Structures are given as structure tokens and as C-alpha cells.
């Protein structure tokens, strides 16, 4: 990621911003972190895009429904388990 001086002086380059993004998207709740990130994102389109897309990605993942376990898979599992238990 390209280096970029930030006029606010709060966040000096995009590498630091990416670390902040990782922490922020990773669920770290810290007002100071969010403030620094926001300041940087206001002046850097690249980091703003990265932040937005990672947030969407995590959001989409969190909405993924639980896989339905097919009846056949469950049946085979229980056949194996009962066989294992009875051979014990």
C-alpha cells in the first residue's frame, strides 16, 4: 500500500492506517482508534475503500446462515457412531 502523508498528522501513512483498519474491523472498540482512522480515511480514498470493503465482508460473513446438515449426512454419522460404540 502506498505511503501517504496525512495533513492531520494523526496517522502518518497507509501502513499504519491498515493496522488500525485490521484492529477496527477485528472488533476492537476504541474511540481513539476510530477517530484516527476516520481522520485518515477522510484524506485517503484507498484506505477508505479498504475499510468499507472489509466491513462489508465481515458483515456478509456474519449473515451466512448455518449450513443445513442433510438428512443423509446425519444418518451416516449415526451409523458410524453406533458401529464405533458397539465395537468398543
Amino acid at each position, binding site marked *: 500500500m502506498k505511503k501517504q502523508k496525512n495533513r492531520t498528522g494523526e496517522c502518518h501513512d497507509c501502513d499504519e492506517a491498515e493496522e488500525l483498519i*485490521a*484492529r477496527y*474491523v*477485528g*472488533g476492537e472498540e476504541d474511540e481513539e482508534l476510530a477517530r484516527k482512522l476516520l481522520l485518515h480515511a477522510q484524506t485517503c480514498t484507498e484506505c477508505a475503500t*479498504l475499510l*468499507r*470493503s*472489509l466491513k*462489508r*465482508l*465481515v458483515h*456478509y*460473513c*456474519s*449473515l*451466512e*446462515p*448455518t*449450513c*443445513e*446438515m*442433510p438428512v*443423509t*449426512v*446425519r444418518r*451416516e*454419522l*449415526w451409523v*458410524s*457412531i453406533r458401529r*464405533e*460404540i458397539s465395537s*468398543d
Partner: protein
Amino acid sequence: MPENTQLAVAAPALPVPDDVLVRRVQAGNTEAFEELVRRYERKVYNITYRLMGNEQDASEALQDAFMRAYRFIGKFQFKSSFFTWLYRIATNVSLSKLRKREKVDTVSIDQPVNEAGDLPFEIPDVKYGPEKLMEQRELRAALQKAVDELPEDYRSVVVLRDLEGLSNEEVSKVLKLSVAAVKSRLHRGRLVLREKLASYL
């Protein structure tokens, strides 16, 4: 009948804690093991499915994971929670099968996501027109495919953390990694997914 007895009867039975069930299995009670299977079969299937990417392999990994759990439960020493131990077995079994599969198939296996079990993918603030639903199905399939293609180190972390909803600390226990390593792999994995799913994000 005394009044307080009536209240006791009305109270819902609390589930038997995992640790108690494990001790019963260790003492030879096989029904306790069956109760543990019933408790975790869906969650373990989710992990194996997400890691393996198709129903057939996920089913084999699921069976292997519970077989191993049964064979080795006697050695479980309660140093971690039962589910952490079980998830670790399921993850290791799946990753081991993946390595074998990748050795056999040099071409990547683009198994489609199980369409039969598809549920509408819910994204808030969207209109559920046919076009949108198609887009959501596409996204789900693309997400699973992208996860399938992740390097192993990233895949297990992304599956457990982002798809199964475990905390960083829980993932670190399951995978026996430091929390810092989990965070690092998670971020790198997410960056790879972001590249692959760029058109959806």
C-alpha cells in the same frame, strides 16, 4: 403436596454441562457420548463443510472427528472446554483431509455450494426481487469458493472467526495459536477474500 415442590416440578430442567457428560463417557456411559454428539453435530458439520467446501468430504470429516473424539475422550483432561477440544479435532481432521485431497487433485476442485440447502441470504436494507436474490445466491457461492481457495492457515481462522462466530480467544485455543497470530492471519485472510470478492464489496 407442599407448594415449593410444585414450583420445583414446574422449573425447566437445566442441560447437563458438557464436562459432566464427558466424565460419564469416561466412566463408560455411551449414552452420554450420544448426547454430546447431538449437542454438537450441527456445529461440527458447519466447520467441516466450511473447511472442505463440499458435502461428501464434510460428511467424512464429520464422522472422523466424532470417531476420534470417542476414541480419545478417555484422555481428555479438562484443560480446555470440551467444545474447544472437539472443534480442534474437527479442524485438524478437515485440514489433514484437505492436504491429502490437494496432493491427489492438482486441479482445484470447484465443487458447487450445496444448492439443496440454500436459504435466502439475508442482507439488510435490500429489496428481495429475483435479481437481488440471484445476487445473494451468487455471493454465497462466491464466498464459499473464495474460502475454499484460501491458504490453509487463513482458511481455518476465517472459518472459525468470521463464519462460525468464535471469538479471537476461542479461535486461539482451538488452533493453539496466540491471539496475535489469530488476528494477523484473520486480517490477511480477509484481505485475500476482499480481492476475490471485489465485485460484491
